[in-house]
């Protein structure tokens, strides 16, 4: 993967809206390299700048400073109609006066491609998104999921170098969204086109992406594979945004961290105050007084079907959550008020840079 050439790149991109003192930086010095053929996701809460970055790549906005490169070529000031990049819009933005087939052929028509080629491509796209019987329908006669497919086919038809997807699944219900996630992944594999996908849904990002850039407040917080980001979050924001996490603070002498509740963990870190994160499924619950276990009391248990979340109070009053698989061999049948021991496996603890 690392040998693949770079498809799109943002270099020190800054985008400020408004002027002077009221200017808001939607993007603050963002640099990112997206590789060819990659399913790349920009993940973050609303207002984090992910859509702005997408619009810079599409050409709908010009960066205040910095550069956008496509295949190594500077396209920062190229208008959107001159960029070999297509977008699937959140609202789909299908042309209501045109049929499904005319919508899909629109980009090719504007490029003045030969009739025969347009006809052939539109037919191929209709087959790709399984909408052949709908070719001559108006888009308003289609369901949400079908409109989504038309939007995809329309953006893929001109074979863009990069396909940009702006929260395309957010308008669909859960079942349809799951189907479209698989569909999108299939389309990406079949076409081999670089996908840049914007979402605020961490689960969507984890299941679909080759790599994810987690964004917050106009910055990229971490870029990496879903596994990297989940198991080795770079900072507190990433750790809390992706999945559930327990945060623990303590003091380190370099080789051992003494937590605020008095428990000690062997961990090589920088000296001084440290922040640690551990996923609920990594905590091990054992009988009180077991070797290396810190004491805790069960505050409540929540049953989730596949697992149970055990909320625990530590001796210093702080709360953490442990997840127990059901059925788990040796899992304890815990009730509120029970005393337990908690083991923090050192290899599951993440040291956060704050």
């Amino acid at each position: 993967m690392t040998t693949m050439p770079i498809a799109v790149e943002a270099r020190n991109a800054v985008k400020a809206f408004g002027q002077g003192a009221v200017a808001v930086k939607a993007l603050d010095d963002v640099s990112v390299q997206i590789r060819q053929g990659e399913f790349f996701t920009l993940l973050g809460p609303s207002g984090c700048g992910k859509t702005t970055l997408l619009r810079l790549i599409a050409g709908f906005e010009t960066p205040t400073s910095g550069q956008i490169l496509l295949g190594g070529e500077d396209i920062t000031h190229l208008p959107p109609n001159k960029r070999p990049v297509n977008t699937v819009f959140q609202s789909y933005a299908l042309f209501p006066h045109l049929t499904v087939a005319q919508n899909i052929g629109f980009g090719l028509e504007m490029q003045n491609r030969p009739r025969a080629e347009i006809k052939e491509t539109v037919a191929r796209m209709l087959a790709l998104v399984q909408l052949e019987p709908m070719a001559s329908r108006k888009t308003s006669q289609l369901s949400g999921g079908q409109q989504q497919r038309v939007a995809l086919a329309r953006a893929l038809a001109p074979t863009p170098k990069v396909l940009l997807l702006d929260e395309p699944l957010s308008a669909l219900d859960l079942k349809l969204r799951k189907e479209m996630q698989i569909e999108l992944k299939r389309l990406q594999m079949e076409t081999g086109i670089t996908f840049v996908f914007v979402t605020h849904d961490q689960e969507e990002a984890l299941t679909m992406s080759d790599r994810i850039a987690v964004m917050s407040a106009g910055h990229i917080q971490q870029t990496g594979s879903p596994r990297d980001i989940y198991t080795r979050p770079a900072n507190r924001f990433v750790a809390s945004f992706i999945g559930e996490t327990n945060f623990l603070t303590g003091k380190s002498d370099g080789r051992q961290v003494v937590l605020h509740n008095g428990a000690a963990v062997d961990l090589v870190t920088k000296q001084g105050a440290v922040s640690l994160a551990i996923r609920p499924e990594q905590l091990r619950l054992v009988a009180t007084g077991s070797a290396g276990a810190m004491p805790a009391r069960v505050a409540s248990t929540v049953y989730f079907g596949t697992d149970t979340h055990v909320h625990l109070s530590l001796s210093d009053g702080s709360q953490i959550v442990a997840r127990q698989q059901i059925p788990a061999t040796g899992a304890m049948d815990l009730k509120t008020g029970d005393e337990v021991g908690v083991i923090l496996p050192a290899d599951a603890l993440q040291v956060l840079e704050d």
Partner: protein
Amino acid sequence: MADRSFEVARLPGFRSIALTAFVLLYLPIITLVVYSFNAGQSVAVWEGFSLDWYTTAWENEAVKGATYRSLLIAASASAIATTVATMAALGTTRRKAFKGQTFIYVMINQPLMVPEIVTAVALLIFFASIKVATGYNGLIYLIIAHAAFCIPFAYLPIRARLEGMDLTLETAAADLYASHWQAFRFVTLPLMLPGIIAGAMLAFVISLDDVVITEFVKSGGQDTLPTYMLGQMRRAITPEVNAISTVLLALTVLLLTAFFLLTRKKD
């Protein structure tokens, strides 16, 4: 089915009030139309059915001239007004909200708010000085005057149409390799066309119907149908006026029906 929820239509007297209103609205028009087919000279005493007054009106050179001028002015004025209104509607809706937006709306819709008689006097004085200076007395003054007061009538349906249109559509067109002109030609224009046609028809009807401003601005021998009829009323009233009115009514109803069909919301 004892539905006791409040409904205005069930209040005592509702039916009779509604009925009275409809009678007041339509009875005079029905009378007008009926007497256009009167065989006699009167617009009040029925003497039998005939199409004589339609023939009389059709053969009257003054009516022919007035009809020609009315149609020419309405066609030219609505064409100018619709073009201006289309550009105004594009300028005020195909963008993010801007400062002074309400002020601009008020400016565009000025003719709806200023009393017509004031506009008429203003135009009379304004054009009089131009007529003196240039010595030109053609229909162009009437066309300009009509175009001016027709703009808001053309503007409102076009704007309504554009406001219901997703701003992302042009962005999507640009994303799909359309130049500014292509995006307008293949996306914006076809989508706003029903609004433009509706606006043009409304402007046409409004121009066709105008009396006050026309009466003030016209030069000698420039009667339109409405001002010709007004002139006739000052002399002897014959069912000829009824016949002309009936034809005007039919034309207006036809255009307004088309207008409503065009502006009707889909499904």
